């Protein structure tokens, strides 16, 4: 498959680009909800609009009422989300949770997917335990209890957890903390007794929860995939999330870069447009190169994921790491090249820096993923 968008994908990109630039614009969404200290961190109306566009069910099989598209297409939407810093439940609900639900029973799919597709439901995922992403280790326990399970533990960085109608929780049904086996995924409804959210606002104005599961009782049919055999579903879900976050990061990087290059063409100092200064030109050109490369490997990872290729997981880490570095460079250069006004809340460039930081941390930062690339490569 060639590493560029085919005609259908280009059409989708145009649609998504126009939609996000209009409906998902910074002033209309991010600043709007932020300045109102919205407890969700996003707007439900926009989510509903995204459903009308078909975006919400983009990865859901047609048999389940979705569009049955792939990660390339999801990535197209995410890149536009990133470019406009549009807060929405798309990444967690339509990419990550949807990926897990794709492996779920007919019953669970029937219970949750229609709400997702309609833009009525929001899902979250609870993976991390602690401040750094270490999915190899899961301590949250799910003990057999009657026909079902009883979950106890603590999860962190549950993005949009308190707004979610259902949370996909990774818990341990057997084995020790860092065993590969013995992990099981659960679909935990928001009203489950014993579920407690400590919701905090993050630097990018999004909301995330410290989630406490205090003996949360679930039926056996809340299990996604196999009991004790959830590692593979979990890995696939996480890979989907990483590649999705990478795509959004590419959008953040490109958005920040575009703003900055525009500024270089407008701002005058010392009687010249600052874009005439060669030192800035070279830095901008280097940045362009890094962002292009990050975008290429992200599309590559999307294609591999869609093809179910063996090296998809490796390439997901490469993409997450590369985008992490490139987008971080883009926002740092962006603020620096904007100078003083780049430091003000009034200008948008700082919002890119904030979003990049949160996104970089989500599902593993560049350090984590570079280390993972080394491990998967055998060194």
């Amino acid at each position, binding site marked *: 498959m060639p590493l560029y968008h085919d005609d259908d994908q280009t059409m989708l990109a145009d649609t998504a680009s126009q939609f996000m630039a209009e409906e998902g614009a910074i002033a209309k969404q991010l600043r709007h909800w932020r300045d109102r200290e919205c407890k969700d961190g996003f707007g439900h109306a926009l989510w509903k609009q995204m459903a009308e566009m078909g975006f919400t069910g983009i990865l859901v099989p047609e048999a389940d009422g979705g569009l049955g598209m792939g990660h390339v297409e999801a990535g197209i939407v995410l890149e536009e989300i990133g470019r406009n810093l549009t807060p929405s439940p798309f990444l967690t609900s339509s990419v990550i949770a949807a990926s897990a639900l794709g492996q779920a029973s007919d019953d669970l799919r029937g219970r949750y997917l229609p709400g997702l597709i309609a833009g009525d439901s929001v899902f979250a995922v609870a993976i991390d335990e602690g401040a750094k992403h270490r999915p190899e280790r899961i301590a949250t326990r799910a003990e057999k209890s009657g026909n079902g399970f009883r979950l106890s533990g603590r999860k962190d960085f549950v993005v949009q957890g308190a707004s979610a109608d259902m949370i996909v929780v990774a818990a341990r049904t057997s084995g020790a903390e860092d065993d590969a086996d013995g992990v099981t995924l659960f679909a935990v409804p928001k009203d489950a007794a014993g579920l407690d959210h400590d919701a905090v606002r993050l630097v990018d104005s999004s909301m995330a929860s410290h989630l406490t599961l205090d003996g949360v009782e679930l039926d056996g049919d809340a299990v996604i995939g196999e009991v004790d055999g959830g590692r593979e579903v979990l890995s696939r879900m996480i890979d989907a999330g990483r590649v999705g976050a990478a795509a959004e990061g590419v959008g953040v990087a490109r958005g920040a870069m575009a703003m900055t290059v525009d500024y270089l063409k407008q701002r005058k100092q*010392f009687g010249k447009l600052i874009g005439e200064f060669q030192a800035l030109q070279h830095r901008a050109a280097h940045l362009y190169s890094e962002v292009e490369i990050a975008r290429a490997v992200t599309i590559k990872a999307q294609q591999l994921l869609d093809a179910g290729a063996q090296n998809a997981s490796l390439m997901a880490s490469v993409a997450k790491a590369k985008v992490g570095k490139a987008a971080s460079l883009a926002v740092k250069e962006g603020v620096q090249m904007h100078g003083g006004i780049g430091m003000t809340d009034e200008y948008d460039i700082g919002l890119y820096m904030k979003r990049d930081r949160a996104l970089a941390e989500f599902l593993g930062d560049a350090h984590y993923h570079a280390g993972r690339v080394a491990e998967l490569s055998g060194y």
Partner: protein
Amino acid sequence: MSDLESFRAETRAWLEANCPAEMREPAQGEDDAYWGGRNATFQSEAQKAWFEACRDKGYTVPAWPREYGGAGLSPPEAKILREEMARINARSPLSSFGIWMLGPALLKFGTEEQKRKYLNEIARGEIRWCQGYSEPGSGSDLVSLQTFGEDKGDHWVVNGQKIWTSYADKADWIFCLVRTDKTNKYQGITFMLFDMASPGVSTKPILLISGNSPFCETFFDDVKVPKDQFVGEINRGWDVAKYLLGHEREMISGADNSERGAGIGAMLKRQAGEMDPVLRAELAMFDVDALAFSAMGEKFLDEVKVGKAHPAQPNMMKYAGTELNKRRHELVMAAGGSAALEWDSEESRGGSAARSWLRTKANSIEGGTSEVMLNVIAKRILELPGA
């Protein structure tokens, strides 16, 4: 006992008697500082007592002459006072742009009359000053400033806008660069002084990406400034400004050296427990740079003391120090993970990590951007052509 030894003994005794215990605790933030001025209030009795003792002794500005409100200390005496204050962690009795910036300018360029009036007011904490240099259109290219003072015989009428005026909303007076000759770029600027209560002056605080800030936008709308309120010569304010900029840059490059020079790997390991090996490697590389820069800071200060430092070296220190500090906070964020992303939770102390990280991004912009620093190094130290 030599004179200096006895001065040290006296100083130690005076501090013992006059510096309250509370004033020997580390300050918790900028709010703990006393800034003086017409509307000043003290945070505590101790703060008031300490300020007044210092003011009366001339210790708010120990090295200034007595007639201007100082204690007239010689350089070695001033150093002893600094050392003795550091020994007991005594806080600074008075924070003031008057002391740090206007004072040095007046001492060099002011008339005797100006010195007597303004320096005494500064030393006694009676007038709080702010600085009006930058404008929206003139950042790095400061000399392109547009705020204009029209000559009306015995006064100017000033119109324009300043930005990044720290504490403009709290200051009593401003020292301000105003264009008074549109035909001469460098020799058409006057270093004016005027009351912030003058009709036509208004201020608006600037919200930063890191949150609230002391910075303001300051607007001048037909502000009348008497023709005797300037420093140096009319149209020669750029000389004063340049002198002060050098002063400021040296302050910035010397400041915080202790914090900036320390390694952070061990501290972050203690906080984070386990650590990604790639992050550990980056921290190790950072610590190498930080410890090396700490030696550089020491060398620079040693050389400054004996006049061995290249006059443009502060630019290099500012460049390297601020870039290092930005990297430091990137790594603190990385080690802190999702906990460091929190923006207003109690556990994160109101987003302290994230806000500090964002705030450091201004380090390489304020007081001369990294790009300007590199230009200056290329031109004045490496003597590259056309730089």
